[in-house]
């Protein structure tokens, strides 16, 4: 009963915190509306017109395929980048020599502008989803990697010694002592990785002419249809928000409930 109550309480608090998030979004909408009124429909269509354009788009048969294309590419890129980056980061976090070898490689990868990766990926994969996913992975891997390295490197070694004194082998120590600490570093990194995945997906689609929302944006630009272009942007942002607040944050909140315990009453969100 206690556990269920605590879980329901946490869920309630999470949903309630949605109001604060909505406040932020409405502030953006208000600024947007002000910009629209100052510069006119051609430069910045009104938020409501944009939503109407989005609703119009949603009615068209191709819409779902286009949105799904981008979402799947972004999520595939995110999954590969978060998976590989975190895995490499964990290994590197345990080994100083691995950090030293991998660090300059990452700096090198980060130093190459994403646009150059798109060109290279185009040559390797052609104008396809592969180009988009590959570009996402290359752009996003270093973020997840850095988060994992940081998490493992800052683990509490005295807790590890305790676990060892109680007979925990290396794998058990990793699971019971390192992973719960790692999570705190991985989730912020994954959030950034996810945002990068969606941004790079649209950019790569547009530049590689690989369909998806990026392709639709290119078409809207060619037709000088600003409302439609804005509608596509809103759609991508909505997808990102849905994944971040619908999946990542609740998982994190569930895993890190113990942190709330240390927060005094009245400070709890």
């Amino acid at each position: 009963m206690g556990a269920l109550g605590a879980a329901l309480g946490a869920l309630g608090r999470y949903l309630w915190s949605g109001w604060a998030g909505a406040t932020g979004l409405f502030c953006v909408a208000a600024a947007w509306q002000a910009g629209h009124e100052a510069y006119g429909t051609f430069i910045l269509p009104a938020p409501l017109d944009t939503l109407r354009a989005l609703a119009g788009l949603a009615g068209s048969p191709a819409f779902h395929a286009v949105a799904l294309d981008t979402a799947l590419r972004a999520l595939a890129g995110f999954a590969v980048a978060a998976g590989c980056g975190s895995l490499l980061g964990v290994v590197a976090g345990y080994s100083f020599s691995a950090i030293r070898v991998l660090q300059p490689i990452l700096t090198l990868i980060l130093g190459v502008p994403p646009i150059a990766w798109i060109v290279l990926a185009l040559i390797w994969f052609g104008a396809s989803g592969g180009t988009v996913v590959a570009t996402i992975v290359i752009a996003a891997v270093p973020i997840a990697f850095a988060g994992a390295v940081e998490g493992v490197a800052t683990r509490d070694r005295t807790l590890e010694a305790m676990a060892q004194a109680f007979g925990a082998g290396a794998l058990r120590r990793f699971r019971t002592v390192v992973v719960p600490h790692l999570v705190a570093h991985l989730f912020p990194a994954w959030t950034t990785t996810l945002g990068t995945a969606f941004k790079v997906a649209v950019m790569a689609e547009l530049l590689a002419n690989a369909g998806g929302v990026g392709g639709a944006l290119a078409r809207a630009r060619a037709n000088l249809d600003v409302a439609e272009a804005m509608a596509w942007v809103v759609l991508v942002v909505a997808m990102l928000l849905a994944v971040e607040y619908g999946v990542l944050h609740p998982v994190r909140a569930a895993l890190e409930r113990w942190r709330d315990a240390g927060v005094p009453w009245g400070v709890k969100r």
Partner: protein
Amino acid sequence: MRLAFKAVGHSFLGRTVLDGVSFTLAPAETVAIVGPSGCGKSTLLGIAAGLIEPLRGRVRREYARHAAVFQEPRLLPWRTARDNIAYGLELRGAGRRERHEVAARLARAVSLAAEDLDKYPVELSGGMRQRVAFARALAIDPEVVYFDEPFTALDVGLRRTLQDLVVDSARGRGFASLFVTHDLLEAVRIAHRVLVLAHRGGRIAGERAPPGLPGGRDERLVWETTERWRTEDALFAHVFDAEERDERRAA
């Protein structure tokens, strides 16, 4: 015999911390190890508990399970007191029912309230955290318990209570223990034998046995023995002189 050190030595980065350390720990015996800070007590305990591989000498262990209590509680912050107490059991593959039963029983044994079992370490006081750490050690029913200055951070009254708890548990459950401390009074109160580590050189300078048995010594005997050793016994004089000198230099 539970534990035997034979000419154990260890160095960190070429600097000798322990050298030629030999002693044995009998079943149900409590051996205290005293010495000024920095003399290698924690290193010795780490070697005994298998956390540090000694560079020289041999360690023989004749038991199945040991547990440890450290100066800091070292509780897993993301686990409730209950799951912290049951940590060692979980590592041994005990089921949920058994873990909860044992945790509840040991919480009572170390005077933790039942409602504290659902709290996370951040919600517990320092004394309660150390009680949880002690309960975690007892939970696996160890034959040997290693203590590394477990009560140094606590106030005097609480320290007394927990010392009594250690003595009672050791007698009731029959575990042997190696108890590192730099509080001579504490050593005299709880131990069968007291080993003294030298200030420098990492050797055992000598050994003394307080009169009577742990738990059977009254406050006066403990106090007088401590004072006599501190003031009249050359073995302790050199240890604590060195410590005082260091403290004066630091101050």
